[in-house]
């Protein structure tokens, strides 16, 4: 389980984090914190779908569901990924 969290966190750091000095953890606000905007959220959703071979309905891809790695993990549980 922690492996998935770390994979997602590493992906977000690699793909979205601009400030090299910024500390990011599992509870860091991604959407409200301005790290991932609503347009970029589409690519993060696509990453999760591709990586874990799932389809996340748009209705479930809310800013709240993507606002932290912890929240994303809650979402992935619905798809039996974790």
């Amino acid at each position, binding site marked *: 389980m922690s492996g998935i969290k770390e994979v997602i966190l590493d992906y977000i750091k690699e*793909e979205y984090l601009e400030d090299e000095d910024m500390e990011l953890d599992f509870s860091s606000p991604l*959407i409200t914190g301005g790290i991932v*905007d609503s347009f*970029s959220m*589409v690519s993060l959703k*696509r990453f999760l779908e*591709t990586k874990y071979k799932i389809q996340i309905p748009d209705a479930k891809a809310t*800013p709240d569901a993507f606002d932290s790695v912890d929240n994303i993990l809650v979402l992935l549980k619905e798809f039996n990924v974790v």
Partner: protein
Amino acid sequence: MNNMGPYDEIRKKFNWNISENELGYKDGDDINIGWYCSDRICDQGKGEKVALIWQGFSGEVKKFTFNDSRIITNTMASFLQKTGVENGDRVCLFMDKIPELYFGFLGILKMGGIAQPLFSAFGGESLITRLEDAETKAIITQKKHLGKVRKIRDELPGLEYIIVVDYDGKKPLQEREIAFSMEDSEKIEKFDVFRSKAETPSVLHYTSGTTGQPKGAQHVHYSLISQYISSKYVLDLKDDDIYWCTADPGWVTGTSYGIIGPWSNGITQCVLDSGFKAENWYRFIEDQKITVWYSAPTAIRALMKEGKSEVEKFDLSSLRHLCSVGEPLNAEAVLWSTDTYGLTFHDTFWQTETGSMVITNYPGMEIKPGSMGKPFPGIEATVLDLKTHEPIEKRGVVGLIALKPGWPSMFRAYWNNEKTYNSKFINGWYVCGDRASIDEDGYYWFVGRDDDVINTGGHLVGPFEIESALLEHESVAESAVVGKPDPVNMEVVKAFIALKPGVEASDMLELEIMNFIRKKLSPLAMPQDVEFVDSLPKTRSGKIMRRMLRAKEWGEEIGDTSTLEDD
């Protein structure tokens, strides 16, 4: 009673002198937007009134009075001058929605510079294109975006100063980089504001077109005359209002109505520097007791998705007037807002080039849900025949929205691009590039763009810029980019891509291409859908027929295909 009064009456008697007189401006006087938005308000005895209530994503709140604004903008103007920036130089603002962005904008204008705000999510390629074209001399940014600037600065020898507003001293600054602290700098009480005149350049906003690279729409200080009075009439701003414009000053709404309009009226405005979340937005309205709210259809539709139950958790009774801008506000959203908030969103239409609202709905005027409203007093508008470019007299016929040049905030040039600027004027009209019809009551009804530009979330994205960037991806042979319908953003970018021989299409490649464009250009330009194709439809002369692909996405008739190469 609203500020404007009955629309038909004011439309008959309006002239721009009304605005000039209220601002105490006479032809030939000095006119500096920076001074009008800070010093003048203090001179009116409102120095201790709150100008800005700023809230960060973590909940931290900062408040600044108009006197604070006057001193901070003096300090920033003085700093720029001492650094070596001269009047007429282009100074880019590349920041999140932090206080330094708002005061920096006025500071640049106060010292005679031309403010060039750019959306902080822009990638390196988007930055280079715009900074190179404008021959920008200085960029004001924050630490989190410094990495992007460092990657491109070697390609921009004219970029002499990189000013960092939140330098913490942890890592050394590099060549051309200078620290500036709004809090710690010596406060400048008195500053000789640059004596700009009506036609002195003020702001340079870049906007996308169908072909070529983005163009810099150049405005002048006299734009204030339009921005002041339209804020007063359409936003209905009054002295005790608490106003919230949700737009980012990287785009024209964020400067015309997120800085100039409210502050030249001496209004308290709020800024929430946080990504979108319905709960946070509603809480912000409740906490700050916002009365006038100017937002965008994309945000309104996102709030609709969250439902009425989310609204009922908050006390939004402070709200009294709502407006919207960016793309047409659909009738369903207008009706939803009336039902949910007890207030109707008033749609407003204008563009980067127009500098201020030109066709809008007004407080006190009947709203026809889904309509753009009527021309602003002082604006002569029509729709032109698609072929002859003559005004269409018959009601209900679709034509090109056109405006008679001469309103104060009309753009004065595309930077370094006189030919394209001139091409916007036909038969004595400025042609907006949008199609609409006018009904029997004089209301305008938006139909769509007249070109291939994609309006996504209220922002225009040029297909050419994305297609050019896609060609730089090692797997892409050729591409065509169009807008496809989207329930929230109106349109999103879709890319049709033919891969190079031997490259296999895959989900991972699609994601890689999406991220490639997102980082190179911006999240707005990122294709949200990629379709791999064997080849693209072209004319016999080899030009890609985007309209065929677009028609397919929108379920429209494909139209004339007689020039297709494969026919």
